[in-house]
């Protein structure tokens, strides 16, 4: 998933550098806050460990092929997300300089795609909630597999977005995404299985090495929302700029039947409701009117934010309902 400089425009490369630098600055601040001098050499050596482990080939059962792992989730589980993120930056920089694996301009993108999602999204949104009430073998396996798959899917999707936004390739967005996502689903599953196997082994032999903070019974909804918010802004904001202007599935079907994108109204209640919608819609047809690009982008962010908000709301309602049910049965 390492991106080359040639696949990026300076604007996209610069923007992703800024995003990764902000995440790095925050991580440095957090690592400094609970500074432990002993952790510095551990981070350095663990970086070299990931480098070495990436060179090993793992046989994928039943396929005859082999795969290797990236290590972001594993580092986050061992060192904590902030130290893991900084360690991943060091690994990616060395890979870029020494092995020409990824470009110097593309370093910001590579940090974001491979380190940010694994260390922050994978850790805060998947690993930590799973470990909330204590670790177990099953929880470790589930967290690693789900976390790795989702992190790699987000990373692969970001590669598609960044390349398409750079305007370098003529490959249509949909075709590119359709090629990238399934292959990274397979890679993510293998990555998750290897990470799970390693973490279960550590859990059974030297559990004190696992980052204890993850299993503390404090779940920060604020942190979860911040991470989700950042992902929403990057994916929603950028994605909507390259979204297809072709009709969606329903519009396409209606178009084929009636010859128009939308059905004609027959007055009455429909017209009255449409009138209300026109007056209340913040961004009619996903735009500000004059500035289509800004409007589409803003619509993407607002829409994704609302969907994320709705998901959080539903999970809170579900949690309250579950608690009440539990109290009733007790």
């Amino acid at each position: 998933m390492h991106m080359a400089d040639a696949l990026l425009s300076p604007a996209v490369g610069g923007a992703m550098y800024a995003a990764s630098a902000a995440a790095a600055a925050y991580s440095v601040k957090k690592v400094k806050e609970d500074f432990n001098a002993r952790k510095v050499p551990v981070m350095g050596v663990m970086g070299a460990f990931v480098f070495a482990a990436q060179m090993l080939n793992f046989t994928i059962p039943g396929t005859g092929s082999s795969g290797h792992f990236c290590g972001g989730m594993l580092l986050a589980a061992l060192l904590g997300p902030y130290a893991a993120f900084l360690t991943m930056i060091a690994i990616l920089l060395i890979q870029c300089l020494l092995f020409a694996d990824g470009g110097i301009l593309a370093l910001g993108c590579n940090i974001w795609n491979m380190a940010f999602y694994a260390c922050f999204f994978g850790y805060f949104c998947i690993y930590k909630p799973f470990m909330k009430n204590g670790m177990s073998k099953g929880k470790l396996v589930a967290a690693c597999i789900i976390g790795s798959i989702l992190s790699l899917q987000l990373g692969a999707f970001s590669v598609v977005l960044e390349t398409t936004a750079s305007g370098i390739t003529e490959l249509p967005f949909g075709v590119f995404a359709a090629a990238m996502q399934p292959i990274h689903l397979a890679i993510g599953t293998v990555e998750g299985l290897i990470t799970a196997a390693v973490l279960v082994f550590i859990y059974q032999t030297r559990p004190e090495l696992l980052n204890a903070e993850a299993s503390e019974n404090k779940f920060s909804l604020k942190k979860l929302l911040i991470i989700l918010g950042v992902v929403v802004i990057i994916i929603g904001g950028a994605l909507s700029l390259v979204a297809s202007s072709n009709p969606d599935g329903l519009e396409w079907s209606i178009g084929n039947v009636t010859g128009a994108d939308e059905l004609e109204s027959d007055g009455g209640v429909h017209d009255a409701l449409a009138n209300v919608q026109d007056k209340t819609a913040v961004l009619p047809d996903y735009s500000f009117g004059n500035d289509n690009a800004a409007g589409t982008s803003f619509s993407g962010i607002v829409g994704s934010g609302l969907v994320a908000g709705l998901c959080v709301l539903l999970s809170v309602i579900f949690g309250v309902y579950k608690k009440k049910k539990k109290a009733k049965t007790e």
Partner: protein
Amino acid sequence: MGKISDAIYEVHYMDTIASKDSPVHRVHPLAKLIVTVAYIWFTVSFSKFNVTGLITMVVYPVALFSVSGVSFGHSIKKLRIILPLVILMGIFNPIFDREPRFMLYGLTVTDGMVSGLTLIIKGMLTVLGAYLLISTTRIESICYALNILHVPEILVTQILLTYRYITVLLSEANHIFEAYSLRAPFQKGIAHKVWGSLIGQLIFRSIDRATALYDSMVLRGYNGNFRHSQLPGARLKDFSYVFIWGAVFSVLRFTSLTTLIGSLFV
């Protein structure tokens, strides 16, 4: 395992060539870092149809290869890693963009062909630019440059420590894998039953090594602050290096030099 031995060789080789002496090797690391970033930036900023302009950017690698004495042959190996991906992306351009651009000896050259070619040239030039930086500058010197740029101390230390321990842990991984291969001679890769224990053993060895490293650092006066080697400050020739290359890149980027030269003959 060939892959691991290759990686160990590669690290040692790059260390060796970066330690050589040449006018380029002697330039201040910060100056080389700035020029490399500028070179990559200018190169990728060319429009996807400006092949002739982009080709002029070859001046930088040609000049640096000849002055530094770095082997061009070895850099081809680096291109092997990144080029397949770039070619894969570029190969679709002629398929999806068939707008005719110009005729060449009766053959219609489309926009997609031109943009695909531009993508491949950009890929090659940017890799060569980065390769020339690392093959003429030691990683410690690059870290020193990052220090001057106020990159946080802890991040610079991570880069240095990770780099220093790569060969050590690659050797460890090699030993583990060789031992495994001797017991499972005809197996491709590592069987899933031992994924956890094999990598887990490597982690334990790494952490034990990190503990030993920490103890030895403490014995040598480590108190949380890592001391970097100091290099001489920037001299006039370092400023000139940045200024001259900056001017060259600007001229190549903002003037149509190839058209200008061509018009002299046509």
